[in-house]
């Protein structure tokens, strides 16, 4: 039993570590930026604890700095984070029948990064809500600590040190590779990526992730259904 707990912890650590590195690398600069816009470490701490969403926190801080109103900041945050609807939907497949409390606790930690890590592990099997919660909330803690530290530190850490800016990008690339289990999924990923580039180039904002994913996944299902139906019909005839 103790061995089991230890291996669960080891697996959780192994999965969470890349996220920690990435969050620290993004969290400290966020704190520095927020402090420059006049936020105190307490204000940064509250925002990181209550909102916990990296990109929308950056946007909110820059909007605060530009003197934007509360309502427009909240609406922008809503649209920037709406993509999590898709992530939570995909995660729900693996969290059937869990208690509302556990799911509510889990939902608080759903981010691009924890979603990608946990979903990959769930799909590979050998993963459960305990390990997933550890990934979510340890990442949450690292984000909280590093943003507050950034608020105190100012610009002590040099920009681009040790390629740390690339940590999250490299993690997304690795997770993308792990998702590619068929030609069709590879094609969907490529379509989604190209659409996202075009959309974000044509219309700045944060809709491109949602729109590109919905179109590409729908195209994937359409192609799949065609093939499956055709194969079924062939089998029936023969």
């Amino acid at each position, binding site marked *: 039993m103790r061995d089991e707990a230890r291996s669960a912890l080891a697996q959780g650590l192994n999965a969470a570590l890349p996220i920690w590195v990435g969050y620290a690398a993004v969290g400290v600069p966020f704190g520095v930026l927020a402090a420059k816009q006049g936020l105190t470490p307490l*204000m940064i701490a509250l*925002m990181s604890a209550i909102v916990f969403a990296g990109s929308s926190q950056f946007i909110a801080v820059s909007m605060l700095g530009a003197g934007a109103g509360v309502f427009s900041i909240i609406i922008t*945050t809503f649209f920037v984070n709406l993509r999590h609807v898709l992530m939570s939907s995909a995660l729900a497949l693996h969290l059937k029948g869990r208690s509302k409390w556990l799911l509510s606790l889990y939902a608080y930690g759903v981010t691009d990064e924890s979603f990608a890590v946990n979903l990959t592990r769930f799909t590979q099997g050998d993963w459960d809500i305990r390990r997933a919660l550890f990934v979510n909330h340890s990442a949450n803690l690292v984000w909280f600590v590093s943003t507050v530290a950034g608020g105190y530190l100012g610009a002590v850490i040099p920009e681009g040190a040790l390629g740390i800016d*690339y940590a999250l990008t490299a993690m997304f690339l690795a997770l993308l590779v792990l998702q590619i289990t068929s030609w069709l999924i590879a094609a969907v990923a490529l379509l989604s990526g190209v659409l996202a580039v075009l959309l974000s180039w044509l219309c700045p904002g944060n809709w491109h992730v949602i729109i590109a*994913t919905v179109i590409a996944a729908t195209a994937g299902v359409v192609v799949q259904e065609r093939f499956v139906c055709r194969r079924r019909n062939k089998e029936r005839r023969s």
Partner: protein
Amino acid sequence: MSFTVYLICIVGMGLVTYIPRWLPLIWLSRREINPLFVRWLKFVPAGILSALVLPSLLMNPATRELSLSRPEFLVAMPTLAFGWWSRSLGGTVIVGMLLFFLAGKLL
């Protein structure tokens, strides 16, 4: 902006962030999901990851210029290859960071 207004702002931000994370988990984990929707959801992770990462590789966030010669994109190629070969998350992150660091020195 007073502290109270700031608090209202971040509580509002927290709510509109939490609800889209929470609702599908509660809603979908409690019922039978249409199998067609399940098959659709299986394509979502790869789509999201690609849609998140590719614009950041190809587009300069400041000038909004698209280019195939950005170090982010060039480094992504060997990083993807290493990920494909090793199937290791941590290893790929380290290799990617190292290559990006070296690219910064060379380019």
